[in-house]
């Protein structure tokens, strides 16, 4: 099953690598999160009195939480393009006529977004930690909260991608898919701000509940999306 899904992933990545619009999002967001945010933290740290250290911790928690958002922002363009783009460019019919199952095809399209997003998230998070520690002149990151965020990030990413790819199956064009995919950001934003105001969301037992819910949602929605995939639905939208 995985061989054909990987073939789809490699083909899409090859195509994406030649599109500046997609490539741009994949480079700019990790730079902002990994480089610009630590600079802001360092500037704030230099300008506030030691008594207001709480403000700095709030900022670090807020920006740490943004790494959950990265998993929902980076794949938006790629995942929206997955099926909707193939429909727009009229390349989908040959793919649907090939001996690849719905599950393999869906998995391939999910992997195209998932693999680079997770790699970029971890790369950017590593740079973020190094620069924050260097900027503050002390070891601040990764703390336990940030480690849990990084463990939860791929699970959030997977769910966001599954939802976006599924939307891409159902709609006619790329733009429509991208607009609907934006809704995925709302629950992620809620968790990001909850984490900024109270770090307890990633503390026991809430972290276990959150991870279990995310794993359940990832598996459950994958099964549902494959079941509701429908080649006929795709071909009717060409």
């Amino acid at each position, binding site marked *: 099953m995985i*061989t054909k899904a990987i*073939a789809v992933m490699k083909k899409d990545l090859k*195509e994406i690598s*030649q599109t500046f619009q997609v490539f741009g999002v994949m480079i700019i967001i990790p730079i902002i999160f990994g480089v610009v945010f630590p600079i802001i933290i360092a500037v704030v740290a230099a300008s506030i009195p030691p008594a207001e250290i709480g403000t700095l911790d709030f900022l670090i928690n807020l920006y740490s939480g943004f790494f959950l958002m990265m998993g929902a922002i980076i794949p938006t363009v790629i995942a929206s393009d997955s099926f909707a783009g193939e429909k727009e460019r009229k390349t989908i*019919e040959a793919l649907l*006529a*090939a*001996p690849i199952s719905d599950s393999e095809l869906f998995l391939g399209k999910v992997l195209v977004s998932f693999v680079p997003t997770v790699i970029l998230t971890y790369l950017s998070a590593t740079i973020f930690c190094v620069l924050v520690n260097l900027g503050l002149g002390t070891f601040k990151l990764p703390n336990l909260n940030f480690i849990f965020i990084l463990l939860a990030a791929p699970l959030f990413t997977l769910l966001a991608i599954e939802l976006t790819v599924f939307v891409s199956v159902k709609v006619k064009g790329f733009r429509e898919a991208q607009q609907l995919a934006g809704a995925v950001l709302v629950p992620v934003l809620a968790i990001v701000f909850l984490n900024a105001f109270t770090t307890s969301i990633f503390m026991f037992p809430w972290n276990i509940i959150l991870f279990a819910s995310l794993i359940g949602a990832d598996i459950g929605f994958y099964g549902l999306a494959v079941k509701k995939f429908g080649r006929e639905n795709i*071909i009717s939208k060409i």
Partner: protein
Amino acid sequence: MIQVKNLSKHFGDLKAVDGITFEIEKGEIFGFLGPNGAGKTTTIRLLSCIIKPSSGTAFLDGHNILDDAMEIRKIVGVLTENPCLYERLTPVYNLDFFGKLYSIPAAVRAQRIEELLTMFDLNDRKNQKVETFSKGMRQKLALARALLHSPKILFLDEPTAALDPKTAKGVRDYIKKLSEEEERIIFISTHNLTEAEYLCNRVAVIDHGKIRGMGSPDELSRDIWKGQQVQIAIKNYNHQIQQTLKDLDIIKHFEFQNNILIIDVQDTLTDNPRIIEALVNAGAQIVSAEIKRHSLEEVYLNLIRD
């Protein structure tokens, strides 16, 4: 072998395909003709398991389209209405990607890609992106993709559209070869009636989802015009010859125009010798005699008009 049994596909109230039944034998080239929106592409999509029927079924090489879609996709090659090519990628990458989906081993894949690109004169452009290709080159590449896994059954939607005459002839000859030497089933949907007449052993004319006629062009012609026509050029047509023809019970109808007698008969094989003999005995000076053949275009237009 393809067996289609009472196959239907409805989209809401629209009956895109309405209870069609036919069979296609191994090695046969079958033409599927009809106006735009008649149900040709829907039929191909049903038989290549892209969409599911509303009712009825079909068997391809023994596999039922209702429950064996994956096996069917492995043995069919489809040239779709649009070339469906990845324009930002090279022809080699396009073919290699589909080769992987058809589980062709890497070494065989590379050799097959080389063969097909050479056959379709695309070898010198193999490392350039498809977006730089002309319409004809894209069509050739799409055809190469359909042939990549040497399918037992080929569905070709307008296979020579956009091709120059030389390449179109090359493709037609290759299709003939696939049918005659390799006994593959070729199902062609086309508007090009001359091509269908040249290539197809049998044709079906579909309109509003229903098959209006099916058979070889000669069989269809006989069905439509209820028999055959003989054309005899005579130098000295006169009253005696006319009376001789009236007396012959095998002649249903005849007329004389521009020195040519057009005679309706039931069976040319048995009736022609008797007619010629009678005319010669009546003193007719016969210049030529031939069986009038209706072109596929005449047959098609007649079926569609009805």
